């Protein structure tokens, strides 16, 4: 895995997104999304600006540490446009050309490579069960599962325990830090983005694919990652999508770290 292209960052970041925003645990929490302002403030004078209508001394659940919001919002829009005009058309082409079973094979293959990171990070978080599960899955799926194209481990009840270096940092007490929108890859945080880099560096060291991986590998990896995430940017359901996604991403990662 010599080619550390920015596009393959997508894999690690995008998979942190809920795969089905509409009916996930996160949707449940979305119902609890926001709080509001002190009742003494007059809300309805047409000359007010909205900042006067909000109690800036209070804690709102929706308040997230986002000091780079100006950059983040611009990058969010850039990502949405990249998705719309480039990424999604490619993914749809991929889905049209590939038989479902082949898509599943590709998905399993990359998921199996990700097992390396699961094992290392489970070990770093002193989780023997998860470490052994990851090792067992990798061993089984790489052999019986034909280099990871099939996933017999899941069928045998060995479920994947996703662990990454961001979670390891969280396990040892690191907070998420500032919210961060990565180019193409999307929502992250300073901690998780650093974790992603560390995971890449580790994969690079292990060099599992013996330099067979190049640009093609990274591209297919990115397409597969986007294919796995059902989320589509700015479909018009809410004007507060950035707020919603920021909240859901960080809450989901809190859960990931706890687990």
């Amino acid at each position, binding site marked *: 895995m010599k080619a550390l292209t920015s596009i393959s960052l997508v894999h690690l970041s995008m998979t942190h997104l*809920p*795969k*089905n925003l*509409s*009916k*996930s*645990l*996160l949707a*449940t*929490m*979305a*119902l*609890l*999304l*926001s*709080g*509001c*302002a*002190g*009742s003494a403030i007059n*809300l*309805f004078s*047409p*000359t*007010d*600006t*909205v*900042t006067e*209508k*909000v*109690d800036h001394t*209070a*804690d*709102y*659940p*929706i*308040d997230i540490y986002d000091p780079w*919001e*100006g950059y983040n*919002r*611009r990058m*969010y*829009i850039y990502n*949405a446009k990249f998705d719309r005009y480039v990424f999604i058309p490619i993914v749809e082409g991929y889905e049209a050309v590939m038989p479902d079973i082949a898509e599943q094979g590709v998905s399993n293959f990359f998921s199996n490579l990700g097992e390396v990171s699961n094992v290392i990070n489970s070990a770093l978080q002193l989780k023997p069960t998860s470490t052994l599960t990851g090792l067992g899955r990798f061993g089984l799926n790489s052999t019986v599962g034909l280099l990871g194209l099939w996933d017999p481990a899941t069928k045998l009840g060995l*479920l994947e325990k996703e662990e990454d270096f961001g979670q390891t940092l969280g396990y040892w007490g690191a907070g998420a830090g500032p919210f961060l929108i990565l180019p193409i890859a999307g929502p992250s945080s300073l901690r998780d983005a650093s974790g992603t880099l560390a995971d890449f560096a580790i994969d690079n060291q292990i060099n599992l694919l013996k330099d067979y991986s190049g640009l093609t590998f990274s591209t297919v990896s990115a397409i597969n990652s986007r294919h796995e995430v059902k989320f589509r*940017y*700015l*479909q*018009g*359901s*809410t*004007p*507060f999508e*950035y*707020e919603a996604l920021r909240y859901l991403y960080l*809450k989901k990662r*809190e*859960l990931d770290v*706890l*687990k």
Partner: protein
Amino acid sequence: MKNTFYQWRQTLSILALLLLASSVNAVTPRYDYPFDDPHTATVVGTPKDWQTTFAHPAPLTAEQLPRLSQLPLPEVFWYQDTLHYSTAWQEGEAPLIFVIAGTGSGHDGGTMRTLANTWFDAGYHVVLLSSPTYANFIATASSSGVPGRLHQDAIDLYQVMEQITERHDQRKNGKRQISNFSVSGYSLGGAHAAYIGQLDNQRQRFNFARVLLINPPVSLYNSVVRLDNLLQNNLDFKDPTEVDRFVTNAFDRVAKAYVEDDSLAMDDDILYTLYRKLGPDQASLDTLIGTAFRLSSSNMLFTADVMTSHGFLKPAQLELQAHDPLTDYLKAAMRISFIEYFDQFFLPFFRQRTGPISREAMIDELSLYPLTHYLRTDKRVEVVTNADDLILDQTELDWLKATFGDRATIFPNGGHCGNMAHPAFTHTLQQSLLQLTQTQTQQVQPQQPSARSDTP
């Protein structure tokens, strides 16, 4: 020998009974929806084990229409440049049903997918439309920019339906013919369907074979106040500290359940799983329902305010840019109760736009009452709802029974739209369309006698 013959006969009759029982079962599934509490039903819906399974789920495709609204598109809504909807087409000629989503919901929500499966399975082409209260619809197809006036919403929806049909006619190359049209909707979408049905009697474009209202409000104002009270009785959204405490507590409980249980997957049954693990009390359930409603109304009123520059949340002169932070608007919108919105935005906006109207007259207008004659006399209109629907009171339920007569099917429980994926509900919805050519009789006889309402 005689004994053997007797046994034979007995076996045969048991077999016959079993066969009979199973064929009866195939016609009218037993109504065994599990929740008697309407608050639970409304939140949890139909758990997987009680859901209809469809052999061939509707192959839904997301589609887009160019924007219809004459209002200028503000920079902050740059992405609202097309109207989104979904379709599922049968291979050959088939009847088509339009389905309209409930308050704040889009064309591609879970309930909409359930309804699409239901009618696709019955051999219909299906077109799913977002609610006129959905942000994308407001920004692309609402003529006034403020949804909620039912007759005006119906005109907007009608235009969308005409365009979709026209587009289909141009594209289909003689395939996928439409034999006739029906229209349906759930919750607020049910009220919209009724208004569209009446509008079509004047315009005659579709000549709907069936107009089917699912869990509709009778008085929109009353229903929304009821939903809002579920929240206001439990949580004061004007006090951010209290909201913060509630949300933190709720998150901690969900997190604990999630961390403790390895098998807890974020699948379609997550709500039921969490419900069983957490056993929420009624106050929590009501807060959840109310908050969900408040969230969708925040989306709606901010979108409407920006589209109309009415100066309710955003100063009228301020032009928001694509990347402007909107968090404060969300905070401000979340504290606004429905009555505040009604009195301080909705009513003044329409008084300014369409002339004087009293508060009482507006409340009357936002209901099915103006359609009483149409609903009473037009045999093509039917209603399916639940006796314990949270958005209705007894008077309104009785009004539905009296107005629709034997065209009302009322399940004993299910809350607001909680039982829509149950086989008995599916069956009712399918039969309503499949029996179009037969005489108008009560379509469903759930086996438990209590499952049927007494029709007057």
